[in-house]
């Protein structure tokens, strides 16, 4: 990796590379927690993000699950949105124009029910101005078909990766599911499949029950657990994957503050994604950027890259 020092303004160098993707800073927004970015334009400075990852896009529009779709749990939340989205064509037509106008790389999170669907979405996204990368969601627990299997079986994960990679000119990030016995094995398979990077973790599969009604709290019965509650699991998985793969890792799971983000980077993440925290503090991702900068200045570290993987084991 080669970083040209553009300006010597005394501020720490926040740039990181995710494969060929160069980011001004390591803070992205997690898919499904930041809408299509525009929702946040009055609430924060979108241009200060490292990258924007948009809500998962499928080949055809999806209506999503009936309500209730969310329920709060201890220090976390469950969601079963059911991947509601407008489909790749309307996404390109209606959302990409605005996104392309942002000064930050836009990464499109995609999901399919079959390898053919993943391929087709990838093909349609090629050449669309503003699409800087693809994040392949092989881990969504909410849809009965596809999702779970792709992310759980290393061979399947490698196949999807290879299929998307073969059709993509932009870098491919594969998003791993935590609901597996050996996430390191899946990460390795995905690396072998050609992934430029891996992001982790997606949500843990969970459930909540309303004792009053004796019904599941979510209409979909099960949902994805996110938020601070899952951070210890996410950190452990990033650490585990970092020992296995050589491609960059993007850490996700319960990140609310710069401290959280820096912990993920110490564990081996090159960048991070802020998810559920956006709901609680719409400025969370920008606050994380500010906080990392402040930390580096306080610690007199010239570059964020000197943090990555620097966990000290005694």
């Amino acid at each position, binding site marked *: 990796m080669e970083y040209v020092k553009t300006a010597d303004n005394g501020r720490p160098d926040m740039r990181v590379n995710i494969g060929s993707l160069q980011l001004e800073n390591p803070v992205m927004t997690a898919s499904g927690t*930041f809408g299509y970015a525009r929702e946040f334009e*009055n*609430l924060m400075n979108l241009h200060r993000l490292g990258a924007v990852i948009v809500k998962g896009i499928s080949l055809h529009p999806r209506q999503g699950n009936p*309500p209730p779709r969310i*329920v*709060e749990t201890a*220090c976390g939340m469950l*969601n079963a*949105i059911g991947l*509601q989205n407008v489909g790749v064509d309307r996404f390109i037509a209606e959302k990409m124009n605005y996104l392309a106008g942002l000064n930050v790389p836009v990464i499109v999170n995609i999901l399919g029910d079959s390898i053919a669907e993943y391929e087709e979405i990838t093909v349609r996204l090629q050449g669309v101005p503003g699409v800087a990368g693809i994040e392949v969601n092989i881990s969504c627990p909410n849809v009965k078909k596809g999702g779970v299997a792709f992310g759980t079986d290393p061979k399947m994960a490698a196949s999807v990766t290879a299929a998307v990679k073969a059709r993509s000119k932009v870098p491919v990030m594969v998003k791993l599911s935590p609901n597996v016995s050996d996430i390191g094995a899946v990460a390795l398979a995905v690396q072998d499949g050609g992934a430029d990077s891996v992001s982790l973790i997606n949500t843990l599969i969970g459930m909540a029950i309303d004792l009053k009604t004796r019904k599941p709290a979510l209409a979909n019965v099960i949902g994805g657990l996110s938020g601070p509650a899952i951070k210890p699991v996410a950190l452990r998985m990033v650490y585990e994957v970092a020992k296995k793969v050589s491609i960059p890792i993007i850490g996700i799971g319960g990140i609310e503050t710069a401290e959280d983000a820096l912990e993920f980077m110490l564990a081996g993440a090159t960048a991070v994604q802020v998810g559920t925290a956006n709901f609680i503090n719409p400025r969370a991702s920008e606050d994380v950027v500010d906080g990392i900068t402040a930390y580096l200045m306080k610690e007199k570290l010239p570059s964020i890259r000197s943090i990555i993987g620097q966990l000290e084991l005694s």
Partner: protein
Amino acid sequence: MSQYQENATVTRIEQLSEKNYRLTFESPMIAAATKPGQFVMIRTSIGKDPLLRRPFSVHQVLNNGLIQIYFKEVGRGTGILGHAKVGEKFSLFGPLGRGFRLSKDKPAIIVGGGLGIAPLLLLLKENCRLKKNCDQDLVILGGRNREEVEPLLTDFKKYGVTVRTSTDDGSLGHHGYVTEILKSIPLVDGCTVYACGPEAMMSRVAGICAEAQIACQVSVESVMACGMGACLGCSRPDNTGSYTHVCLNGPVFDAEKLQWNM
């Protein structure tokens, strides 16, 4: 459509009945931007639990950048708010959502049940300001008992509007439901019914208005994570067989645009 995160100080606490509270916050930016029917998301904890903000309709906007919410203690978040102290600060985020669409020259019938009364005071205020004179308008407020309804009456009556009441136990006004009052009055052509209350009540109001072929706007609830369109959690079946989102397209909807279980 500007929204703000404000660290708002509690300036006044009123316990209006056993579990119902009215809190006044100093929140000048949100106060200046709020329209009737909009809501705020309030962070109730300093720790990570409860994690999510809680939605509350804006009940009143007062001078000097003050806003009020009127709420019932039903769980942990409202429990924390119910025990707030003057001087305490909470993070408010808002104003959010689409509020009531007001009309200068159409008679308004404002129907509130229980905590659904919350957004209607600001609605009435704006309605009367717009019309200058609202003596053609009617307010119907209901609740479980006298304790729940009475404390709010003066605030509504000060706008010179006729206020009728009902209680489930008959301790104040009509013994029964607000919908029975609504049903019993002549619904003049061109008037608009504005309603907020329990789902069953609103469903009934929507039915009455559909039958009488008059406009009806309802403010509905939904669980919410973000309150601003980012999570897609607040879905509600609409009349097209698809979903609408309460935080973005509501909380106030034309009743006919929603699906009702009648």
